[in-house]
């Protein structure tokens, strides 16, 4: 009895990803029990559409966490790219899909700027991206004076609002991003270098790895993923708003950490970020369905998120205590 339990705990600790997926599954079942509306098709679809965005940014963020850095400007890059795409389509009369392509490239450029600043001037990523976040947010305000850009051509709506079969299209994009990121991190040389840098930057440099080049590249990739999330959100709302992505920096970090990506770098699986995002989304969804007062929602979801983050350390603490008792 004790033995099997021990084994169970051991597997849990070995693979945070399996454990966290299991937890997600249990949460979904419980949610289905406590609220009959939870498993409703419409509810599930909107939940998945929500989590697609946080998940996508979380996957991007986990790339940075793997090299021991983070980007707090993800939300502002997303909304600025959304605004720019909107202005191109609405005010500039550019073909909607061409505008989206341009916005993606602009996202890449913004990420590149972040990366170059941080590597060339040797800035701390957190402080630098807080600063850049204000810059992108500021440009956004200058361009829009705080007003939303409406009359987005309907031809792009389906990207955000549509479904293929029962599955929301943004979620398919998120899965696509995940597959690409997983290929990059798990299968390629560059991916191995990413883990190496996160493990020991000095050793990586002595091995001849172009540490700074890879860091800049990751910032650029992250910028582009942000732009993708931003324009999909514009398509979902049918208008470009400067408030898009306000919560994404924190949510993406929380998702990645819940999913087992270490803040200190070097370990974890980007897929964990998507599972982490799903956990957060299920929690917020259930809280709404249970009719928790609007004023309490944020506090309650916060508490549950902190609990979820502490999961992996909790399991270690529990097994250590058990060992002491047994010994």
């Amino acid at each position, binding site marked *: 009895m004790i033995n099997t339990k021990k084994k169970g705990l051991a597997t849990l600790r070995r693979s945070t990803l399996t454990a966290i997926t299991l937890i997600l599954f249990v949460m979904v079942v419980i949610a289905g029990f406590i609220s009959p509306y939870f498993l409703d098709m419409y509810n599930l679809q909107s939940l998945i559409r929500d989590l697609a965005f946080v998940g996508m940014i979380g996957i991007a963020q986990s790339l940075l966490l793997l090299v021991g850095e983070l980007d707090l400007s993800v939300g502002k890059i997303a909304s600025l790219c959304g605004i720019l795409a909107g202005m191109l389509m609405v005010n500039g009369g550019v073909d909607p899909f061409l505008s989206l392509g341009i916005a993606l490239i602009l996202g890449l450029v913004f990420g590149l700027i972040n990366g170059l600043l941080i590597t060339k001037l040797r800035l701390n990523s957190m402080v630098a991206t807080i600063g850049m976040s204000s810059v992108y947010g500021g440009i956004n305000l200058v361009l829009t004076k705080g007003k939303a850009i409406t009359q987005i051509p309907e031809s792009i709506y389906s990207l955000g609002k549509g479904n293929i079969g029962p599955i929301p299209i943004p979620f398919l994009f998120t899965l696509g991003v995940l597959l690409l990121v997983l290929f990059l991190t798990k*299968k*390629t040389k560059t991916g191995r270098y990413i883990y190496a840098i996160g493990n020991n930057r000095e*050793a*990586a440099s002595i091995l*001849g790895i172009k540490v700074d080049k890879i860091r800049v590249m990751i910032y650029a990739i992250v910028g582009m993923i942000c732009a993708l999330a931003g324009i999909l959100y514009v398509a979902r709302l049918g208008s470009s708003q400067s408030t898009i992505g306000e919560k994404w920096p924190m949510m993406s970090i929380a998702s990645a950490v819940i999913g087992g990506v270490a803040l200190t770098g070097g370990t974890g699986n980007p897929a964990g970020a998507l599972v982490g995002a799903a956990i957060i989304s299920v929690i917020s969804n259930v809280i709404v369905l249970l009719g928790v007062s609007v004023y309490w929602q944020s506090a309650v979801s916060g508490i549950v998120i902190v609990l979820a983050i502490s999961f992996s350390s909790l399991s270690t603490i529990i097994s250590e205590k058990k060992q002491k008792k047994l010994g």
Partner: protein
Amino acid sequence: MKVLEAKKITKLFPGVVALDDVDISIYSGEIHCIIGENGAGKSTLIKCLTGVYKPDAGEITINGKDAGKERSLFRRVAYVPQEINLFGHMTVAENLFLPYEKTGVNGLINQKELNQRALPLLKDFAINVEPEMLVRDIPVSAQQLIQIVRATVCQDYQILMLDEPTTSLTTEDTVLLFDIIRKIKATNKAIVFISHKLEEIFELGEVITVFRNGKRVAHERMPNVDLAWVITKMTGRAMNQDETFYSEKVTDEVLLEVNHVTGACFTDVSFKLRKGEILGFTGLVGAGRSELMQAIFGYLPAYGGSVKLNGKPFKLGETNYSVRHGFIYLPEDRKKMGILPMLSVRENITIPSLSKLTRYFSISRKRESALTEAVISAYNIKTPDAEKKIQFLSGGNQQKVIIGRSMSCDPQVLVFDEPTKGIDVGTKAEIYRLMKKLAEEKGIGIILISSEMEEVMKCANRIIALYHGEIYGEFACGEKKERILSAIIGVQADSKGSYAHD
């Protein structure tokens, strides 16, 4: 008097039996040396005896009482771990007295008082640093000594356990440390001492216990044994101690030409390395040998000078360029600059060869496993399997991974920076033989940085002595030891053909 007794200690790690039914007794007023190959289980034993690990079986009694039940007994054991684990961003004084509860620092922390209390300790150990200096700014040898002082600050210890304390020490520091150890012993405390340097064991030891593969294979009083006995017990075979390892195929072809290179810790250094040659660099710790090589390698900045590889200009300041052109540096501090701790042995081995293993953008797992297996068996790396995280390998085996992986980058120049730090005698000879083979068979030029005079004298075709970042002498192999020794302490070699530049 018997202070500590361990009976039938067994410690298992996933896939390894680190200790197998081990008995050991420690007596006060006696220096007990523990010796064994890399991965034999020495550090694991010490960690069990100090309460860091809990053995899977067996019992430990301290002062006749069961320490498994009464864990406070482990406070009687002061412990200096193998790896330096000080707080780099805190001052020397703060490091000495942490944790404060144990050292009787109560209430608000008064920096001045801490510094005052640290002064006599630093003086006793002749450590030449100020209490208010940050630990990361002081030399490694001083850090090592601080680590030892720290273990002895708490007064009520009866046993002092030192796990390879001399790996980062200079010869003088070692002499000093031995004096201190003898003084501590004279106060009727027990000492447990681990080292791979056999001459230290013979100088210091009174009893010796030998481990092999997690088992205790021999136990004797020191006067009854000799070097051959120790080596045979340790490795299971006899070994010739007088073997030399110079390259016998030094060519006239200049491989690397360094001209007037200047950097932060060295000035105007020029030398030539020939194909198939082993060139030794010796000097005191802090002479600037590592810094010089790291600057040529591109890891540290070089302020001036030029380098040619194979007669062609060699770009300075970019490690990637150096590695691509076959100039490889194997760092001295493997924990800080060598290993990728949380990655597996496989990932650590294949990291420099990924380009060769990649097909259609993705790494071929088959080729990767094949390379991993080849390196593990060629370099005799002891690991339960290739997926083990490298941080759990014994120090010596980590070093073998680092050497092994560099060989798959087609090196032309290999810089070995203290390659046998913390390596057992058997493996040391293996590494020397390997250097010789690489130089002779592949025509690789080898630069060997070492503080161990024996080592350079056994292996190097030529020896350059560095003092305060300047070349103070160049010697052919077979030179008298005294002449080299005087060069490394700053006495310029005379003009009879042994001056640095030609």
